[in-house]
């Protein structure tokens, strides 16, 4: 038994070392040096190139402009994969209907459910601060580090904290139910897809455009999304994508946390009813 275990360990180590060495040294022939690859240099040069606007994304942040402009289609489908992963989670719980089982729920939330008064008060304050910070991260995603994905991950901490400190019925009482979160999630994804399709509407009238085009190019006739003024720079479609992704990711994770925090009795009752039928 010890022998086989040792062999497994050795094989694992050798596999990992070989694969990583191949990736680091062999394929890319690259160790950290003073220069980046030509592809990265292109993105760095062109993300806010005010003098030659053929390839610019109108965003000072290279990562965001790559994410939603240069490699936009890639991110679009990654968002769809994320949507499907959440749908998978929902499917596992598809038959269970949760109705708030308690009478005079708000009274009960205040008295019985959740943690002590100190924790509950502090959680409410911190949760509201998290909401503000998350919106700021999403709205400045095209100017500073951050964006839709990060803001969505940040905002999903707030419902998680509220579920622990105040019970999930606090959220359900405020109409943050499973169905609404699913609807919000879908609205976010639909907004992204609609923004992708907007340039293609111009193609119907005979203009030359690309799908998911952000700024005007010399060889297309699409005028491009507005970049905004210096005080309110929205970087064309990047702002819309970031906000929509923020809604989608935040609602998606809230949905998962709501499902994850279902009380065990609800399941037991459900299973009992299922076997009785």
């Amino acid at each position, binding site marked *: 038994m010890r022998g086989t275990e040792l062999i497994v360990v050795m094989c694992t180590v050798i596999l990992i070392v070989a694969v990583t060495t191949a990736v680091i040294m062999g394929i890319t022939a690259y160790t950290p040096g003073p220069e980046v690859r030509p592809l990265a240099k292109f993105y*760095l040069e062109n993300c806010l190139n005010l003098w030659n606007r053929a390839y610019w994304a109108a965003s000072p942040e*290279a990562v965001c402009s790559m994410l939603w402009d240069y490699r936009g289609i890639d991110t679009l489908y*990654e968002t769809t994969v994320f949507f499907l992963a959440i749908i998978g989670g929902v499917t596992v719980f598809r038959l269970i209907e949760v109705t708030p089982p308690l009478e005079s729920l708000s009274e009960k939330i205040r008295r019985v459910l959740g943690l002590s008064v100190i924790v509950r008060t502090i959680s409410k304050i911190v949760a509201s601060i998290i909401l503000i910070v998350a919106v700021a991260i999403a709205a400045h995603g095209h100017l500073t580090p951050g964006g839709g994905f990060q803001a969505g991950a940040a905002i999903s901490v707030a419902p998680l904290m509220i579920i622990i400190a105040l019970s999930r019925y606090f959220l359900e009482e405020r109409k943050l139910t499973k169905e609404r979160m699913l609807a919000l999630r879908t609205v976010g994804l639909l907004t992204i897809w609609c923004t992708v399709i907007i340039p293609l509407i111009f193609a119907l009238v005979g203009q030359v455009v690309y799908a998911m085009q952000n700024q005007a190019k010399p060889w297309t006739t699409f005028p491009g999304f507005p970049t905004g003024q210096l005080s309110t720079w929205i970087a064309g479609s990047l702002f819309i994508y970031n906000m929509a992704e923020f809604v989608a990711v935040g609602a998606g994770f809230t949905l*998962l946390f709501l499902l994850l925090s279902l009380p065990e009795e609800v399941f037991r009752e459900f299973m009992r009813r299922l076997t009785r039928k």
Partner: protein
Amino acid sequence: MSMLEFTLLMYCYAALIAVLAISLYGLVRRPNILKKIICLSIFGDTANTLIIFLGFRTRNPIPPIVPTLTPTKSLMMEFTRRAVDPVPQCLVLTAIVINMAVLMFLIFLAIQIYRHYGTLDVRKVARLRG
């Protein structure tokens, strides 16, 4: 690159690879599903860190964000010369969020397995035959 810098870089690579190996071992050898999920998340995060690390550059690196909306030409040239590689960061950004969603899905499955079989041990689950 000085000798110290090179040693530090190699140390970072070695540490990341060691964590990868340990997490893969846990993924294969631990019978508990919950421990498998923990190892999987460590494995994914270490892989992401390794990818980010490939974008590092040694000459006074700065983040890949232009500090102003009205840059001069010399500022843009210096930015291009010094900024770290944004390509791996962009790649990892979406991978992290999708990892998180897949992780939640696996946790859901683990919960369902526990409810149905009363155990999270894969050997016992295999013996129960549904």
